[in-house]
């Protein structure tokens, strides 16, 4: 007699919590784990301590930037890979639409509606140097804070690389 109504209320609560979680993570902010060393030393720096190398960094990704799609140089963004929509990458914006970016052999113009992203660890990073400029529509959010591990909790600074970018 009591069990179906208890089950129903539990299911109801789970459904509500699920709805609210999905809405908040789509519209406000979400938690993302960063894998790989392409953004060392900002995320996942190689450390010798046990705690440092135990788990990946967890970062806070804010979604307010998706209303106007206005980004600045040095923003760290999460975006879907142009070659596999199920994979997500975390990289830093180096070039905004309309700017010229200097790569190894060439100077590339970033087309309208796209951005040039690069990882902080240039040696081991798959970024715009391999797959070209990324359409801004693929961006999922902007990383603002590191939330784990506890000794590196803090906000992310905008790192602007000199002498790589010239304005339009």
């Amino acid at each position, binding site marked *: 007699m009591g069990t179906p109504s208890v089950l129903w209320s539990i299911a109801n609560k789970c459904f509500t919590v699920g*709805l609210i979680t999905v809405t908040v993570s789509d519209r406000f902010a979400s938690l993302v784990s960063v894998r790989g060393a392409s953004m060392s030393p900002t995320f996942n720096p190689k450390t010798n301590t046990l705690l440092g190398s135990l788990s990946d960094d967890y970062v806070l990704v804010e979604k307010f930037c998706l209303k106007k799609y206005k980004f600045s140089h040095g923003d760290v963004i999460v975006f879907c890979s142009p070659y596999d929509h199920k994979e997500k990458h975390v990289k830093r914006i180096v070039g905004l639409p309309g700017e010229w970016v200097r790569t190894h052999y060439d100077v590339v113009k970033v087309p309208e509606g796209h951005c040039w992203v690069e990882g902080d660890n240039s040696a081991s990073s798959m970024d715009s140097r391999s797959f070209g400029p990324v359409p801004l529509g693929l961006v999922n959010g902007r990383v603002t804070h590191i939330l784990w591990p506890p000794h590196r909790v803090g906000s992310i600074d905008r790192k602007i690389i000199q002498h790589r970018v010239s304005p339009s």
Partner: protein
Amino acid sequence: MRQWRSIAKEAVARASIVVKFLCFLHVTDSYLLSFSHVLGPSMLPTLNITGDVVLVEHLSHRTGKVGSGDLVLVRSPLDPRKTLTKRIVAMEDDKVTFSLDPTRNYSSRSLVVPKGHVWIQGDNLYASRDSRHFGPVPYGLIQGKVFLRVSCAILIAFGFVGKIDLRYLYLLELVIEETC
């Protein structure tokens, strides 16, 4: 004191109902079905130049079930704040042959659509800015699949089929056949 507490409790209960409803609306709108108003000449004769209200479903593109011939809503690669409505002509690894200027028959190019991208074109090749101009579009930019034009449903529901102009019947057939 007790009165304030009960008022506060009731206010929180009412607010939580509103919050739940808004979250439900957001989830339905982003992950299930939504309405969209599309206009422009690039999809004539399938869609009207003056605007059509269409029903868009957001499940197919997440499960990878979107394919060639589907009408899709795509975030523009030139301006992420705009959404385009175009037809998928080719999926990844397909070969596409197209001409930038359909009024001249002798200029055409071919290319293979790269991995993870799709080739979109408007039905009205003479007045459409699509993959022929900005190249193949990453699959991640697809927002949803158009499967119903609301005006069709309303017309059928009210049984006005007998009174419609023959031109509208042709459009109805075209949309049903191309979206099935």
